[in-house]
């Protein structure tokens, strides 16, 4: 029988994708139900191996990780997550019984974000998942910001190399913060510089044409004012007269 998804109550920023890792079906069902009510989407894994398989192919915002599991337990799974560059910063909340606090502490020392005691408490679950989600979103925003700063730096390099394309800053320029203002200003000034360069290039080309024309006129003048040219012109006139008299 499928679990119904009750009307979601999404936290600020919307629901997240939560990976629930627990070998106990009852625990997975309880967590799925409570998280679905909060507007989160869940995927379930019955052990660490299944969890790592899912992490390799799908994107998650938070992992809820039980410690005692067959095949691959929570400690091994946590160590594998933290050893992977792609998942190192993924928040992991370990699930532990109230008699397993030492294990939870060890997990936090290994890089877990928090722990959730069993039996579950709806308010605590909501608070811990939402706090982890907020932390992850803040980090995602910081990473996106740094990536966009890199775009502006790359644009400056491209401008110097003469390969700048204004479209390369469109995404950064769409931001409504100081970085967006910087990107828009940079793109506008770069466009102005390029327009000025184009104008100068056109003017130089025009000047070249004028210079060429003047040079040509001078050459014509030199030729037509020479004695040799005058002699040729007189001979041509004589020939035209002879031809005319023969007719």
């Amino acid at each position, binding site marked *: *029988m499928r*679990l*119904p998804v*009750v009307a979601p109550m999404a936290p600020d920023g919307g629901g997240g994708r939560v990976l629930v890792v627990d*070998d*106990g*079906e*009852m*625990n997975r*069902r*309880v967590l799925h*139900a*409570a998280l679905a*009510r909060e507007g989160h989407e869940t995927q379930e894994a019955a052990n660490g191996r299944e969890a790592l398989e899912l992490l390799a192919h799908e994107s998650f915002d938070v992992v809820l990780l039980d410690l*005692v599991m*067959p095949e691959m337990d929570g400690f091994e799974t946590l160590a594998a997550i933290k050893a992977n560059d792609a998942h190192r910063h993924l928040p992991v909340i370990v699930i532990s*019984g*109230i*008699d397993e606090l030492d294990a939870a502490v060890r997990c936090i020392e290994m890089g877990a974000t928090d722990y959730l005691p*069993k*039996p*579950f*408490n*709806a308010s605590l*679950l909501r608070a811990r998942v939402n706090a982890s989600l907020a932390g992850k979103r803040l980090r995602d925003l910081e990473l996106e910001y740094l990536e966009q700063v890199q775009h502006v730096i790359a644009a400056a390099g491209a401008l110097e190399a003469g390969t700048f394309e204004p479209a390369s800053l469109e995404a950064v320029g769409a931001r409504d913060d100081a970085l967006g203002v910087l990107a828009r200003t940079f793109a506008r000034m770069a466009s102005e510089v390029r327009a000025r360069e184009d104008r100068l290039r056109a003017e130089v080309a025009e000047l070249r044409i004028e210079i060429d024309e003047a040079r040509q006129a001078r050459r014509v003048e030199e030729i037509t004012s020479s004695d040799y040219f005058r002699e040729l012109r007189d001979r041509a006139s004589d020939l035209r007269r002879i031809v005319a008299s023969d007719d």
Partner: protein
Amino acid sequence: MPEPLERTALDELRAMTGGDAALYVELLDTFLTDADLYLGELRAATDAVTLARAAHSLKSNAMTVGATELAAHCRALEADARAGDVADREPRVEAIGALLLVARSGVVHERNAVAGGGPDGA
């Protein structure tokens, strides 16, 4: 009838479902199914690791439905199994089986009361 389960644990479990009675009943049914499975694993365990894991799982589910005495026995067996001290495994597993029967009756009572058929499922 005596109350074999802690009311606060059941209320917390129900709160996790957001008051969804059908889902609550489903979770109680899952307890009944899984508990038998874990008891079977306890009885069949031939090594301390398997014994500890089954005791851990049954303990976790017992705590969820408020079967505190069952959870306490499972917790003790899990700890001893991890320490390799399970010479008296059989009588302890049977004690857990007896406590599970009590817990089961409480869970059945609860699920039938919520399912609308009355405590006896009538």
